[in-house]
């Protein structure tokens, strides 16, 4: 029975109710291990990959909530302080009216006070856990640091919070006055404000054995000076008291320079956790994670069923697919593989994996309706490895199920609803490509939008042609770029960056085929493909596309080779 509320809510993590966040969060042991280490960690992940949720879940307020709800130990070995950077205070521009040095001072001032405010907010809820002696010491220290009067306060963190608010209010009022900007007030820095606060916390009996983690979320929203300052802090290698965990969307383009002109280095100053992982099957890390997320959310609304039961596959589709798999198997046997030979049996399985689904999609009549897209596995493939992309269609399916059903007992989402929502989301993504790039993607002008449109149209045609005709890897939906030159890069890179920003394209690093280190894999958002009738499940492997051909695609040229064995059928499924 469903218990009100949509279990697939996917609002930004800071806006979720704490109880829901604690109930929904899935602990990924590898990832959590990094967050709970005393090293500096940079967490890379695109929007919706769960960075914020992981940081918030590991913050003190939520650690306390977990103690209350789940009986987890408190204080923990590692206490997190969640510091959001996407705030109006961080976005303020008045600093630009100052000289270069003062710009950096004011920028650090705001960042330091943002962290100070976060500390006050985190520990406010657990002030009762500190002893009277701890509280007295903290009040003394915070009064000294902020100049605030300690009388009549309800604890050290209230004092700190109020002192910071008063200071921030006055400073902003000063900066808002008159036509010019002058730094006529005392400014704070990490070393004059935050470091002493962290030391004072560490000296309390409550936190003496606890490592403090500053969980900096959305660091890409910091201004140029603040990024450099944060990088300088990351270069501070004594982690006996605190360390940083910094979440960034787009680490590959993040400036690693410090305020003094140096550069922080991976391995020495920080380690990286990359949430941008490709998804290929349900055994992969993301596949397991996705299953746990959906299972947990269903359980929390009183639906203790498996994700596959709640999002069932289409029976007619499965029957047709079984027939195609059987045909693929027969083809393999006809080619000479012996099903009774254990070595050949694997080859037959591989052949069926490669061609079974391809046969189904190849041999559908051009006049047939689009394939039924349904099933939990299909939803996970459609997510392209981003958890918010998984929750979005689930949310809409659940919503539609509730509005269509008068029954309070919701056992599963019918395939028709699943397929309808998936088709709508796919149409909407193409609609976005056709009409909204210029107005909704920052930095995307008409020229760039035209190139993006051309690129995705040509990629769609290319993957469709490949599905129909390719001999060995027909269902591939990922590509790498070969034969890059500075000339092709200068034209391709800005467009690929925009596609990445618009979440039309996911760029991940993987091992190079030739064994020569890592290379970038490019996976278009798989939600694009139902509109083209493609198989969203894809297969292992990636297509190698020449940079010069991709540049041609930006200008509308086909990516399909002229010497292809069979002609393309551009009207298929459209």
């Amino acid at each position, binding site marked *: 029975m469903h218990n009100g509320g949509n279990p697939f809510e996917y*609002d930004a993590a800071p*806006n979720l109710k704490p109880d829901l966040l604690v109930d929904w969060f899935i602990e990924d042991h590898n990832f959590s291990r990094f967050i709970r280490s005393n090293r500096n960690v940079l967490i890379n992940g695109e929007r919706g990959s769960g960075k914020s949720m992981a940081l918030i879940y590991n913050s003190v307020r939520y650690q306390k909530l977990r103690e209350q709800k789940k009986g987890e130990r408190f204080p923990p070995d590692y206490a997190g302080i969640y510091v959001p950077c996407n705030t*109006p205070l961080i976005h303020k*521009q008045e600093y*630009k*009216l100052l000289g270069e040095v003062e710009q950096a001072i004011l920028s650090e001032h705001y960042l330091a006070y943002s962290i100070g405010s976060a500390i006050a907010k985190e520990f406010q809820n657990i002030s009762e856990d500190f002893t009277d002696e701890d509280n007295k010491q903290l009040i003394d220290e915070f009064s000294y640091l902020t100049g605030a009067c300690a009388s009549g306060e309800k604890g050290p963190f209230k004092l700190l919070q109020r002192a910071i608010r008063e200071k921030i209010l006055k400073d902003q009022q000063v900066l808002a006055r008159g036509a010019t900007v002058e730094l006529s007030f005392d400014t704070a820095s990490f070393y004059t404000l935050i470091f002493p606060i962290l030391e004072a916390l560490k000296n309390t009996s409550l936190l003496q054995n606890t490592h403090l983690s500053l969980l900096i979320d959305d660091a890409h929203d910091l201004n140029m000076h603040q990024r450099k300052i944060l990088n300088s802090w990351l270069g501070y290698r004594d982690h006996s008291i605190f360390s940083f965990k910094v979440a960034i969307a787009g680490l590959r383009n993040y400036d690693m320079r410090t305020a003094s002109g140096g550069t922080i280095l991976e391995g020495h100053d920080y380690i990286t956790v990359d949430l941008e992982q490709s998804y290929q099957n349900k055994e992969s890390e993301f596949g397991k994670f996705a299953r746990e997320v959906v299972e947990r959310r269903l359980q929390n609304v009183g639906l203790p069923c498996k994700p596959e039961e709640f999002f069932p596959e289409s029976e007619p589709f499965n029957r047709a697919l079984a027939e195609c798999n059987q045909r693929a198997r027969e083809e393999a046997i006809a080619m000479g593989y012996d099903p009774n030979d254990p070595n050949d049996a694997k080859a037959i399985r591989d052949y069926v994996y490669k061609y079974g689904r391809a046969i189904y999609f190849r041999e559908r009549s051009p006049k047939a309706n689009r394939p039924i897209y349904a099933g939990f596995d299909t939803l996970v493939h459609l997510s392209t490895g981003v958890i918010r992309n998984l929750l979005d269609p689930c949310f809409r399916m659940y919503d539609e199920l509730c509005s269509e059903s008068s029954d309070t007992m919701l056992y599963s989402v019918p395939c028709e609803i699943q397929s309808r929502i998936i088709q709508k989301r796919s149409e909407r993504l193409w609609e976005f490509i056709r009409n909204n790039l210029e107005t909704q993607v920052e930095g995307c*002008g008409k020229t760039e939008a035209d190139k993006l449109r051309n690129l995705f149209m040509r990629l769609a045609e290319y993957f469709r042609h490949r599905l129909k005709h390719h001999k060995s890897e027909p269902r591939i939906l990922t590509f790498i770029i070969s034969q890059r030159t500075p000339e092709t890069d200068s034209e391709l890179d800005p467009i690929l960056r925009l596609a990445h920003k618009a979440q039309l394209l996911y760029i991940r690093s993987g091992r190079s085929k030739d064994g020569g280190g890592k290379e970038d894999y490019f996976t278009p958002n798989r939600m694009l493909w139902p509109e083209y009738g493609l198989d969203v499940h894809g297969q292992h492997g990636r297509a190698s596309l020449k940079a010069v051909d991709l540049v041609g695609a930006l200008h509308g040229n086909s990516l399909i080779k002229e010497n292809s064995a069979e002609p393309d059928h551009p009207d298929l499924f459209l």
Partner: protein
Amino acid sequence: MNTRILVAPAGWEDRYLDGVKHDIGEFEPNRIVIPYSQQYRTRTESIREELHEFARSQGVEYREHQHNYGDSAKLYLSLYEAYCKDIEKTSTVRFNATTSPRDLIWYYLYFLSIDTIPTEFSYFRPASYPDTYLSRDARSPVLVIKRSGIAYPDRPTCILALAGYDSERLWQLERSFEPKTMIIGVQTGEQLDNKTRKISRELLQNKGVHDFDFDGYDVSLRAVDKLIDELSKLQEPHNIIATSLGPKPSALTLFRLTQRMPEVGLTYIPSADYSARYSEGIDFASHTLSKLF
């Protein structure tokens, strides 16, 4: 001597030239000041020349200044430098905002407010909008210098958006600021194939979005009261960021709102590409004229 100054940031639409000529006839300035965009200087060149000639024929002093509209801080600084030269403390000013970028409007009104210069706000609607894009290549929203409000790092963000007709930008604002709450003033009326309601309804599917009817052309103090009333419904303290995406006069209303509520910040979404055919004709009958200070 009380100098009467008409400030009219340059545009290239029909309504700009006709509107400025109308203001010259009606306001009878001693001087006109034309800030213009370095990026669009070619597009406004012939219009500025014509205006210069017209001013000379009317015996009005003509001044123009080039500014970098693409950089908000540089615009602020150069605009203020020019303002100090152009506007005497004893002036009376009419500000023609018809085709001005919103950040420029807010900066200029702010300078005038500091010196408490008696100021009128003037705006002309077009006769029609062509069936083409109005602006594109949107950049990241920026907080307006000196009108960025009071922000506390431990408070959630609320966006107050007067949506008007350019409501696609709502999505961009939501994406940039990730607010906990959005309050959307939906443009009343069906003018110009108003698409706002459709998009607003879609946004309303999300939690934390509230809308209310609002006429962006209403520059009365009642419009400010209405916004204050909507903000008073917030259940908890927020950092409030307001923006005007619709009819230009709503920028005036938001400026007035920040005068009444200095804690409210203003934001602006720059575009790198404005249509050369942004509008056609001028509708003199709906001339907006409002006293500020």
